[in-house]
């Protein structure tokens, strides 16, 4: 595996790298450019970068107005203040008129670390999923993050791009081709399906290896696009394995786990066990300590995969 890199880092790099190819997008930030990494774009294209100060609601409104005038707009902040603080601005000023605004939300989930609960957003996917016409992408690694940025530029409409603070290993296979709205089968299996997103994807792959050593065959699906959800790949895999585990760095309510349950209940009802933040607030700590505390671990995926298998009729 290549060196670890945070998806927020890849976001900033991608904006800067794509700035020449696509000359009409602009980037907004709310006094967090150094942390969201939009600062990388700002350095290269200062005339296309606009700091909005610590005023996320206004930033999203400004983004809507820019988009109404034909611009493609990235508006960045931490997930907590983008999806959280500015939810209603995203809903009414971007979602309802279906404007070409891309919310670049970094520091999603508990891997924010030391800043603690006020800055750890485990609710953003749930919030964004309920906005009609919103596309949500939660990339698993730097390659996918960069591809998601380009897809957002070339695809009209509101996007919510979810990036993490912590460095993660690459999981995308060589020659990987990102397709918006399409899940990616990373491992074939027959006993259980692990559906993972974001930084949980590499842990899901590790879990599949552990299960394999115990004689359990796990299929691993990376869902980078949470909305629209690739129901087909999930249902087909569920039909084959008969048991599903979801894994996400988000509240198990309303996120990937919720979306998968909703999809399977209507297409292929099988037991689903959700790994994620179990309806709790975050806390301060180092990233490995927090991942362990909240059960976002290889071991917990393994344990819940067995639980899902045991629930099969």
């Amino acid at each position, binding site marked *: 595996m290549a060196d670890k890199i945070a998806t927020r880092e890849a976001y900033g790099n991608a904006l800067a790298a794509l700035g020449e190819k696509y000359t009409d997008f602009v980037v907004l930030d709310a006094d967090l450019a150094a942390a969201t990494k939009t600062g990388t774009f700002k350095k290269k294209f200062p005339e296309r970068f606009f700091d909005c*100060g610590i*005023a996320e609601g206004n930033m999203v*409104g400004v983004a*809507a*107005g820019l988009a*109404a*005038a034909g611009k493609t707009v990235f508006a960045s902040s931490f997930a907590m203040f983008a999806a959280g603080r500015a939810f209603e601005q995203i809903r009414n000023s971007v979602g309802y*008129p279906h404007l070409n605004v891309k919310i670049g939300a970094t520091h999603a989930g508990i891997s924010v670390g030391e800043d603690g609960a006020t800055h750890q957003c485990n609710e953003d996917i749930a919030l964004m999923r309920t906005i009609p016409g919103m596309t949500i992408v939660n990339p698993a690694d730097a390659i996918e993050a960069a591809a998601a940025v380009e897809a957002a530029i070339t695809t009209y409409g509101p996007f919510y791009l979810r990036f993490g603070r912590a460095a993660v290993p690459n999981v995308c296979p060589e020659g990987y081709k990102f397709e918006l709205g399409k899940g990616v089968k990373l491992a074939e299996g027959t006993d259980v399906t692990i559906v993972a997103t974001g930084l949980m994807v590499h842990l899901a792959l590790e879990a599949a290896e552990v299960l394999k050593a115990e004689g359990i065959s796990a299929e691993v699906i990376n869902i980078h696009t949470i909305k629209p959800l690739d129901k087909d790949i999930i249902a087909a895999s569920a039909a084959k394995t008969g048991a599903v585990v979801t894994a996400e760095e988000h509240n198990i309510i309303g996120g990937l786990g919720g979306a998968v349950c909703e999809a399977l209940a209507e297409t292929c009802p099988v037991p689903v066990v959700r790994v994620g933040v179990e309806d709790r607030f975050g806390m301060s700590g180092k990233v490995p300590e927090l991942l362990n505390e909240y059960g976002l671990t290889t071991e917990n995926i393994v344990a819940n995969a067995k639980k899902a298998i045991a629930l099969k009729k």
Partner: protein
Amino acid sequence: METTKLEMLKEKALNIRLGALEGIHAAASGHPGGSLAIADILAYLYFAEMNVNPADPKNADRDRLVLSKGHTAPALYAALAEKGYFDKELLGTLRKFGSILQGHPDMKHIPGVDMSTGSLGQGFSAACGTALAGKIDGKDYRVYAILGDGESEEGQIWEAAMFGAHYKLDNLVAIVDFNGLQIDGKVTEVMNPTPLDEKFAAFGWNVCVIDGHNFDEIEAALANAREVKGKPTAIIAKCVKGKGVSYMENQVSWHGSAPKDDQYEQAVAELKANA
């Protein structure tokens, strides 16, 4: 102002008021007070100020109007119909199921609506964004935002005010309908947003205070806004809520309720008689 221009504006304002009330009466719901308050301002903007063409409503170089106080949509729709963006017959479908004339402005479906608004505070930010886009693209279009005085209690208004001054958006004009009333009573008693002129000035804006029903003063303030460079202009327009209908004027109860048949007939008669 020349008499012909003044007469034209009075006629347009009358038609905007009649069109707004027609819709509200037919819908048996809507916001007449604020709609009547901004009719003269809308008449001036659409018929003497803005560079717009109803035959080409999405032209990239057009001036824009964002009705940040989106609940006064009936007046905006009446102005757009009067300008020729769509058939006046549509005004009677306001707020009705299946009509494009939604309760609050919907840019996706209504020709001439430049921004979807209705959630207070948000349209002003969007107006800032569109004005910024004009600066980025080196275009000389202008952006007009109509705000409410009650709306100015929203924190987002002041975030946007900071933004507009910071980016020197001299192509942006905010017109505040300062009619002094909001749903729960007088703005000064509910949550006092005044002094609006001093607040905007402190935020770095060029400020004019005018009578929002005096076309000469509206003209002078908008001309002043074009002349002042390097900062946006806020026009604090003292308006009468329910202007032109005796029983609605300065009555908070007419913020968001529709006239019954006899009240509607009286309103139409008064407006026409006083024109």
